[in-house]
């Protein structure tokens, strides 16, 4: 699901990493998450549990679980289908995303991975610092 043509949304570089602002709609609530990393090295997207709790996203008995394992340990996540997730006008309805603690020792509220970027055919322009679809 691609947004309007030629709409561009700014990327902020912090510590040499690209961050965007992410918008979530879920069950009639809206949440803006700043400091969300765009990561073409991540297959799946993940959002910080402590923040999305504010719009009623929380574990439910039937959720599928996930286990993220690697350098630094292991992390439990649960998988949620969010009504809408968007970078500006680049949006996907009913997007499945991991929800986890994200205690990585630096200030980050989510990771937008290749699942979102491929679905939206996004272009990341690092010369002009924007993302468009």
């Amino acid at each position, binding site marked *: 699901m691609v947004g309007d043509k030629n709409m561009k949304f700014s990327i902020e570089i912090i*510590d*040499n*990493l690209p961050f965007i602002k992410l918008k979530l709609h879920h069950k009639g609530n809206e949440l803006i998450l700043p400091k969300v*990393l765009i*990561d073409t*090295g991540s*297959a*799946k997207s993940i959002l910080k*549990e402590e923040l999305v*709790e504010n719009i009623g996203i*929380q*574990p*439910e*008995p*039937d959720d*599928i*679980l*996930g*286990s*993220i*394992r*690697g*350098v*630094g*340990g*292991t*992390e*439990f*996540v*649960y*998988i949620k289908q969010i009504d809408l997730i968007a970078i500006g006008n680049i949006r996907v309805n009913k997007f499945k995303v*991991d929800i986890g*603690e994200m*205690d*990585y020792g*630096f200030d*980050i509220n989510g*990771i937008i991975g290749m699942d979102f970027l491929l679905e939206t055919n996004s272009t990341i322009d690092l010369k002009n610092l924007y993302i468009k679809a």
Partner: protein
Amino acid sequence: MQWKEVREKHPDKWVLFEALEAHSENGKRIVDNISILNTFNNSNEATKTYRKIHRKNPHRELYVAHTKKEKLEIEERKWLGIRT
């Protein structure tokens, strides 16, 4: 302990548990032996307690699940990390 036993002993509860033994199979994490850390009536308490323990011990394989689930279904992700 197996998940089946956990369900029988703690029906309709949120359970914070550690996977003492587990293996990976076709992109799924299969838990072979479970040790229960605590049980809860609501998920918020369970995830809060998870965070507290996980921050001190990031290498322990901990999960929060509800015993309504007949089968533990755990998708596996590999994480190489963000490099700063």
